[in-house]
C-alpha cells in the first residue's frame, strides 16, 4: 500500500517535472460585470454579416476558432494599407494552423459590396476560408467595432482622443478578447504573434 502511494507520488512528480514551466495565460480583456457570484466577462455580442461570397456569417461559424478581427475599407487612404500588411504577416504564419481565422470587417458597406470584397480578397491572393471579409449594415458594423475595441479604450492614456482604427483584436472560442495590437506597429504585432501562440497552447496546440 505504502509502496503504491510512493509509486503514485513518483509518477505525479515526474509528470510535473516533465511539463514546461507554463507562461501566465492571457487575461480576458474588457469590462467585467459581477452578477451575484459570477463574473461576466466582456464578450463579442451576436452578429450576422455577409462574407465575400455573399454567405451569411454568424458567431457560431467562429465558435470553434481563435480569430483575429480588424476593421478596414477598400478606399482607406492611410492606415488600412499598413494594417493589411500586418494581417498578411499573421495570415502567413498561421496559414496551416486550422484553429486560426482572420476576420476583416468593412466600415464602408455602401462601396464595399460583396463583389468588391471578393475582388479585394483575390488581390491579396488569400484563402477566404481562412481570412474572411465581412460587410453588412453600417451601424451594426460600427457598433460591433466598439465591442472589439473596448479593450483598447481601457488601455488608452487619453480618454476620448484615442485612435483605435488600426487595432487587430484576438478573440478566443468563448468570444472573449484575449489580446490586441496596434496594426500600424510591426513590433506590437510581433508581440501579438506570441500572444496567439500562447492562446493556441491553451487549446493544446504547440507552436
Amino acid at each position: 500500500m505504502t509502496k503504491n502511494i510512493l509509486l503514485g507520488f513518483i509518477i505525479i512528480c515526474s509528470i510535473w517535472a516533465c511539463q514546461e514551466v507554463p507562461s501566465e495565460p492571457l487575461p480576458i480583456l474588457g469590462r467585467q460585470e459581477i452578477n451575484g457570484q459570477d463574473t461576466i466577462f466582456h464578450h463579442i455580442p451576436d452578429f450576422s454579416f455577409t462574407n465575400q461570397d455573399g454567405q451569411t456569417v454568424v458567431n457560431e461559424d467562429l465558435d470553434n476558432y481563435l480569430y483575429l478581427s480588424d476593421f478596414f475599407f477598400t478606399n482607406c487612404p492611410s492606415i488600412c494599407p499598413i494594417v493589411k500588411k500586418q494581417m498578411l504577416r499573421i495570415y502567413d504564419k498561421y496559414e496551416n494552423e486550422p484553429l486560426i481565422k482572420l476576420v476583416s470587417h468593412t466600415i464602408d458597406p455602401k462601396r464595399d459590396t460583396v463583389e468588391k470584397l471578393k475582388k479585394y480578397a483575390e488581390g491579396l491572393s488569400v484563402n477566404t476560408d481562412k481570412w474572411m471579409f465581412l460587410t453588412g449594415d453600417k451601424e451594426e458594423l460600427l457598433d460591433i467595432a466598439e465591442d472589439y475595441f473596448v479593450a483598447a479604450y481601457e488601455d488608452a492614456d487619453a480618454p476620448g482622443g484615442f485612435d483605435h482604427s488600426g487595432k487587430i483584436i484576438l478573440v478566443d472560442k468563448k468570444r472573449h478578447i484575449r489580446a490586441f495590437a496596434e496594426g500600424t506597429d510591426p513590433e506590437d504585432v510581433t508581440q501579438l504573434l506570441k500572444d496567439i501562440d500562447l492562446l493556441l497552447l491553451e487549446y493544446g496546440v504547440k507552436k
Partner: protein
Amino acid sequence: MKILQLLALLFLFISCGPAHNDEEVKLLYDEVIRIHDEVMPKISDINKLKKRVRKLEKNDETSIALIKQLQDADDAMMDWMADFQKYKTLADSSKTVKMDYLNVEKQKIQSVSDQMLLSIDTAKKYLND
C-alpha cells in the same frame, strides 16, 4: 580641376532637382492625409451620437435634422476618401498637376473635417454633453 568641380556641382543640382519636386508634393500629400487622419476616428463618435439622438425618440424637426446632419457628415468623409483614390491615377503626372490636385483636395478635406466637427458639436449641445 575647376571644370571638374563645376561639373560635380552641376551634377548635384540636376540630381537634387526632381527629388526636391517630389518632396514638395509629398509634403502636401502628407498634410492632406494628416487632416484626414485627425478627424477619421470621429466617425465612431458620430455613430454613437446618432444613436443617442435616435434613442430619445423625439422625432421632432430638430432631432430629425440633427440625425441627417450627422449622417451627411459621415457620408461626406466616406465620399471624400472614395474620391481621393483618383490621386493614384496621377502617379505619372507632372508636379504641377499633382500639386493642383492636392491643393484642391486639401480644401475639400478641411471642409469635411469642419463639417464633421460641427455636426458632433451640434449634437453634443443638443444632448447637453
